[in-house]
């Protein structure tokens, strides 16, 4: 196949179609050679034709080709070193030293000796023959233009001298496609209403879509990740028959936050280190009087079967306003109300903010969300409570539970809920629970055979685990990265 002089690459796709129209099939590597153009340009033109569905059919082909190394290119351009040596010494010969000074000297000398073109006579190099042919250069020139008049032995020798190397070239075997045409219209970017109306879409070619790239991000709003998890928890509670408590009261009196729960007035949780005390409005003054009296008695003297704490209970301590330290303050109000209205079995829940005067770190904030469940029923037992936990945590995707006795000031019996964490390979605490003490329930006026259980966990912790967030401040508060809000997936806690 003889190479033409370099062809114009103008409108190459059309040239390809015309060529294919008469020849039915071609190999891109060979055609590039034939047309004397860059193979990559040809491939580019073929690819652009491929956006027209069905015009071309292609198959990948690989061809082994001999290619000149950079040294081979140099020799083809300038002549082989042995020939240069031969030329250099001329008819008079030259000294070894002069030859070695030349860049081609060393290699050229040894090859010229090998070919017996020159010999050394008393330190001078002289020609052995009057005329030589630079066949190395000729062979390289032939191979460069893809000519095939170089024998296998010659090729072997060139390879040995690292003047040529074998490379694989990927090309395409191109034939006519099912809807081959030599006259393709410019492909349409997209379908238009006019094309639909006129039906012209039937005769048009359409630009191919690029399915490798991402689409345009829709402009939309986003819900906060913590609130997504909260919604999921609400659904779990609803599905288990729990009603939502009215927890929209952050300011609470110490009475409802502590005293009503039989938490003694000297308890460390009531220290300024742990609790935010409100300086304005500093105190609450309206309490159900008879109930307050019963609470005072059970703390200071006991009663309802209890020995009490036997200390001097002070109204002033109970009046102090705080930011509630737990949603159980609301549960206490709700249970008191339940007792006043007449007891009926109840399951209640809340998910809302609580406040602790804590030192802040990566896992502690001064406010966080408490998830709390309360179950009030006649003859409720620990076994029922464990049953509820089993179902509740199953909905969170947690099935391997065990329970540890613990101490809470206002529940007895109390238990911590542990789950086996596969990643950490150990049991980790996931919640706290217990049966509210009779000293809390009976002064409210609840019947003696009613047991009330409560359990709680934080909302932030499961959310951090769910979304792989390590610092709580990256989740809650103004330091959040909106990118995180934009991109948190929907929350399915059991997945």
């Amino acid at each position, binding site marked *: 196949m003889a190479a033409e002089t370099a062809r114009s690459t103008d409108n190459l796709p059309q040239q390809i179609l015309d060529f294919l129209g008469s020849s039915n099939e071609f190999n891109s590597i060979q055609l590039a050679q034939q047309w004397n153009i860059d193979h990559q340009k040809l491939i580019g033109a073929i690819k652009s034709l491929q956006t027209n569905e069905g015009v071309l059919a292609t198959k990948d082909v690989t061809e082994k080709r001999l290619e000149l190394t950079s040294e081979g290119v140099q020799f083809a351009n300038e002549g082989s070193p042995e020939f240069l040596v031969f030329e250099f010494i001329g008819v008079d010969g030259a000294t070894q030293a002069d030859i070695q000074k030349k860049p081609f000297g060393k290699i050229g000398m040894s090859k010229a000796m090998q070919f017996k073109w020159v010999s050394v006579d008393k330190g001078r190099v002289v020609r052995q023959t009057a005329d030589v042919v630079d066949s190395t250069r000729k062979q390289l020139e032939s191979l460069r233009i893809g000519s095939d008049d170089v024998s296998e032995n010659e090729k072997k020798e060139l390879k040995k001298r690292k003047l040529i190397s074998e490379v694989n070239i990927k090309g395409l075997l191109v034939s006519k496609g099912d809807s081959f045409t030599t006259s393709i219209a410019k492909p349409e970017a997209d379908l238009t209403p006019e094309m639909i109306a006129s039906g012209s879409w039937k005769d048009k070619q359409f630009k191919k879509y690029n399915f490798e790239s991402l689409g345009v991000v829709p402009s939309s709003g986003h819900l906060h990740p913590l609130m997504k998890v909260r919604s999921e928890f609400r659904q779990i509670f609803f599905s288990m028959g729990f009603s939502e408590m009215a927890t929209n009261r952050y300011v609470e009196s110490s009475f409802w936050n502590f005293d009503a729960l039989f938490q003694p007035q000297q308890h460390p949780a009531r220290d300024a280190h742990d609790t935010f005390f409100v300086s*304005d409005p500093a105190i609450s003054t309206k309490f159900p009087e008879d109930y307050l009296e019963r609470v005072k008695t059970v703390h200071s003297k006991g009663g309802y079967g209890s*020995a009490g704490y036997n200390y001097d209970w002070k109204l002033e301590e109970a009046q102090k306003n705080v930011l509630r330290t737990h949603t159980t303050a609301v549960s206490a109000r709700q249970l008191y109300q339940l007792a006043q209205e007449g007891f009926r079995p109840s399951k209640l829940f809340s998910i809302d903010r609580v406040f602790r005067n804590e030192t802040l770190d990566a896992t502690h904030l001064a406010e966080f969300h408490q998830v709390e469940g309360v179950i009030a029923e006649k003859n409720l037992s620990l*076994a029922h409570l464990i049953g509820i936990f089993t179902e509740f945590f199953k909905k969170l995707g947690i099935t391997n539970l065990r329970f540890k006795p613990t101490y809470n000031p206002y529940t007895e*019996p109390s238990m911590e809920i542990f789950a086996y964490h596969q990643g950490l390979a150990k049991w980790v605490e996931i919640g706290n629970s217990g049966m509210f003490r009779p000293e809390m329930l009976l002064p409210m006026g609840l019947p003696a055979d009613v047991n009330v259980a409560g359990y709680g966990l934080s909302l932030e912790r499961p959310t951090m685990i769910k979304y792989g967030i390590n610092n709580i401040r990256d989740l809650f508060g103004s330091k959040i990265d909106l990118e995180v809000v934009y991109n948190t997936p929907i929350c399915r806690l059991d997945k």
Partner: protein
Amino acid sequence: MPTVGIKKVILDKHFERVYTEKEFDELCFEYGLELDEITSEKAAVEKERGTDAVNADLNDQEVYKIDIPANRYDLLSVEGLARAIRIFKQEIPSPHYKFAAAPKSGLQQIIVKKETAQIRPFVVGAVLRDVTFDADSYASFIDLQDKLHQNICRKRTLVAIGTHDLDTIQGPFEYRAEAPKDIKFKPLNQTKEYTAEELMTLYSTDSHLKAYLPIIQSSPVYPVIYDKNGVVCSMPPIINGEHSKISLKTKNVFIEATATDKQKAFVVLDTIVTLFSQYCKNPFTVEQVEVVYEETGAKELYPLLSYREMTVTTPEINTKIGISLKDEEMATLLNKMSLKAEVSAPGTLKIVVPPTRHDILHACDIAEDVGVAYGYNNLVTRLPESNTVAVAFPINKLCDNLRIEIAAAGWTEALNFALCSRDDISAKLRQPDALAQAVHIGNPKTLEFQVARTSLLPGLLKTLASNRDMPLPLKLFELQDVIVKDASMDVGARNERRLAAVYYNKAAGFEIIQGFLDRMMRMLNVNPAKDGTGYYIEADENPTYFPGRCAKIIGPKGVLLGHIGALHPEVITSFGHTLPCGAVEFNVEPFL
């Protein structure tokens, strides 16, 4: 929850067997304790003060750190812990704690002077005779006092313990309250005498003792205990005298505890003597001390070593735990918990609560012990028997639905703290009067928690400030509670559910934030109308907004819902912003 650290070798000695870490961890879990970590003196110092502080004197023997329930004072030393768990494992019977016979010379006495009533009115005491300490038990004795001081004694405010070598002092003792300048003695670990006044100065820089000074510092008189010869035994709750200090050689220990809470003093004294009488020649015996109130002549004997009787019914406990044990089975389980239980009638148990178990207040505490001894993890689970129908809290239901519509309208949800600084709601919003409306925190640790927010805008503007590199426009909302003072509420304040939104871009885009308001009203099924059936906006002046670019939002029945407008440039800059910002904030509760 208090933590005790006990060397593993000492644990092994008291348990009379060697537990593996896993076995001990399981045992703790079952009993309701938690093996928190395993460390060593050396590792602990290294952790707290760095590798440089570690020297060759430090021991690298294993120390088990165990979390103890806050009401189980009897487990705060290895003596009590090992005793309770070995009883639980049925390896040893519960000891019976007894009073020793009075010596021929009579019981020791503490005479209480009436002046003590104004500073620290109660004192109790006890004597442990013929004690043999070794280095470990002596260290444990000191450590228990410290643990009690930190926990039940509430850092010595409620009770302060003093222990003395009885052979160095002579009763009767006097508990007095005297002016600081009149008290003079050589305190523990000092070489010379100081007056109480001087001690207050001396200890004001003592890292350990300075915390206790405020308990009595401002009182005109300080409590002090003297022996018969005027030797100062202690100046509670600060320091004991050097003269009577106990040592490894001490044989007879005089224990006194002064208190502002008498009940806690009983518990503290019972705990010390029950735990450490095991080292007496006659184990588990305690010699009483007579406390005489000089003014009234009342005489009281301590310790109480109270064995309290309670009656419980097995059906009630079975019901509460969810089991069906026979009377005898339940009694056996209770014995494992150091409680003496016997069947007094069918279905009835008579329980004797020993002086180590002051945590038992009620039959529910007995029920818990049955549960622990039975094993929580052995219970057969059930679901509650009643059907209940779930109801959502109406405001939450409304807001959860609304939040979805807001996000669908293109706004992104922020979630900010309910607490903030005074400046956030006043100066920065140009609302100097907001502070009068706000709930104030009395003891904030930082400026961030001075007041409860009265507006959602500061939080939204701060969230914008943390996200300056995000592409514009930024559209944020928050649908949460603010807190305002309200004298009609029992606590003097109430939450109010608000919706606030901001539009932050190169132009204030009032029409966009107004479009947001219109959209929300549409979703709340409220139409534009000025006749009291719908909503409208009307020009208004509000310092937070740019003059002339603010309107009030009037809802159905003419209720003022909130404001809308372009924020005042000073508000924008005070939150560190540079671009115009449209904002709206209104109360959603009227739409319930």
